[in-house]
């Protein structure tokens, strides 16, 4: 408790030595500091990349008919290369028949795209073309083996992206697909890690069973 000249006894703790001037000075500093932080936050928000429409966002690939008109061999199993999203868009039933030799033509593989369905039983797969080994771009399916064969270090994957040979630590990474009406839409904001080594739901051939394009 202190005694003040005008007010007499002042209750409460002594507020210390701080003068009004130094209080104002510190509050000015605090205010300028807060404003600077706000400005910094706004700047970061402003400069934060906006990925709408490119890799990292929701990308509309098109309907099955659109894809067939772009790449007529899609209906007979050749994966559709969608450059903007760096992915192979695989017509699963057609690709399976290409590998097992039954050579069916599948104009429209359907709408079974849910991630809950086993990849081998889905209509389509969106496989990321970046090799999970060291990031090279995986070329189109090798026509001798019907596998994806990475040119850099010879990692090899089945048409469903399961790893069969080479140094890669897992199968090809992929993206979830959703239907927007009858348009296939790929969510490239989240990369789904590829299946572990040893996963073999389809195509049980080994690397020595046929000829290869690489290695």
């Amino acid at each position, binding site marked *: 408790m202190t005694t003040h000249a005008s007010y007499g006894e002042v209750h409460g703790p002594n507020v210390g030595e701080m003068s009004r001037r130094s209080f104002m000075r510190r509050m000015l500093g605090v205010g300028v500091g807060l404003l600077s932080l706000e400005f910094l936050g*706004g*700047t970061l*928000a*402003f*400069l*934060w990349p*906006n990925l*709408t429409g490119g890799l990292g966002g929701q990308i509309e690939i098109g309907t099955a008919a659109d894809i067939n008109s772009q790449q007529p061999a899609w209906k007979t199993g050749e994966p559709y290369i969608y450059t903007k999203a760096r992915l192979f868009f695989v017509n699963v039933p057609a690709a399976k028949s290409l590998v097992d030799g039954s050579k069916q033509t599948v104009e429209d593989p359907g709408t079974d795209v849910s991630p809950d369905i086993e990849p081998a039983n889905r209509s389509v797969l969106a496989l990321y073309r970046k090799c999970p080994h060291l990031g090279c771009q995986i070329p189109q399916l090798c026509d001798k083996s019907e596998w994806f064969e990475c040119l850099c270090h010879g990692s090899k994957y089945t048409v469903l992206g399961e790893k069969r040979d080479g140094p890669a630590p897992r199968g090809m990474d992929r993206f979830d697909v959703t239907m927007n009406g009858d348009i296939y839409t790929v969510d490239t904001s989240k990369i789904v890690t590829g299946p572990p080594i040893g996963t073999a739901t389809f195509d049980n051939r080994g690397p020595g069973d046929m000829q290869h394009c690489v290695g």
Partner: protein
Amino acid sequence: MTFPGPGDLVRVVKESPVWRSLFRQPYPTTSRTRALAVMNNVFLHLHPVRVKKHAVRYTYTFCLGGISFFLFLVLTVTGLYLMFFYVPSVSRAYQDIQAISASVAFGDLVRNMHRWGAHLMVLTVFLHMIRVFYHGAYKPPREFNWVVGVLLLFLTLMLSFTGYLLPWDQIAFWAITVGTQMAQYAPLLGPQSSFFLLGGIEVGQNTLLRFYVLHVIFLPLIAAIFMIVHFWRIRKDGGISGPV
């Protein structure tokens, strides 16, 4: 045993060479140390150590020059921000402007600050000139600074004119078409000056790039140099103008 408290930390920081390099004298409390604080600081030394009493009379100058300079700074900062998203290409410029407004965080705010700041700056520079004229503040010894000020007015208008083309919309295109047609009527080198400014015979990609470079580097740099001279002359000619 006593533990070091926050006071000890403050003392260690304040005695460090970094702190003593940044704050070379204690908080100024006397006339002399206040003058030194202003003189010894690169940012504060632009201000006079002492001002005349009339200098704080706001209604004499209405701070029009100061507001113009403030707007120049606002335009520099917002312009810098806009440059991150704008490409001066005829195929991209308009889409980039739309994208800044529609899909960049605070993008519409920054763009409008730049646009309205530019309009306001033309207005305040003009009002500043009128104020100086009606006070007779252009008379000796300030006649040289009046000329510098007229050049700054011209640079402000050129900055406004070059920025006008950058959105690459219809109003921009035709305004610059008309503006550069007018240049053809200049004596002696009329057609040549228009040709040089446009980078061709009509408004096109070359014009957009030329106006962009003028707008973001050349004219602001020249304006900044003239501003340095302008502010320095104010001090040399006896400080901020006031009633005689």
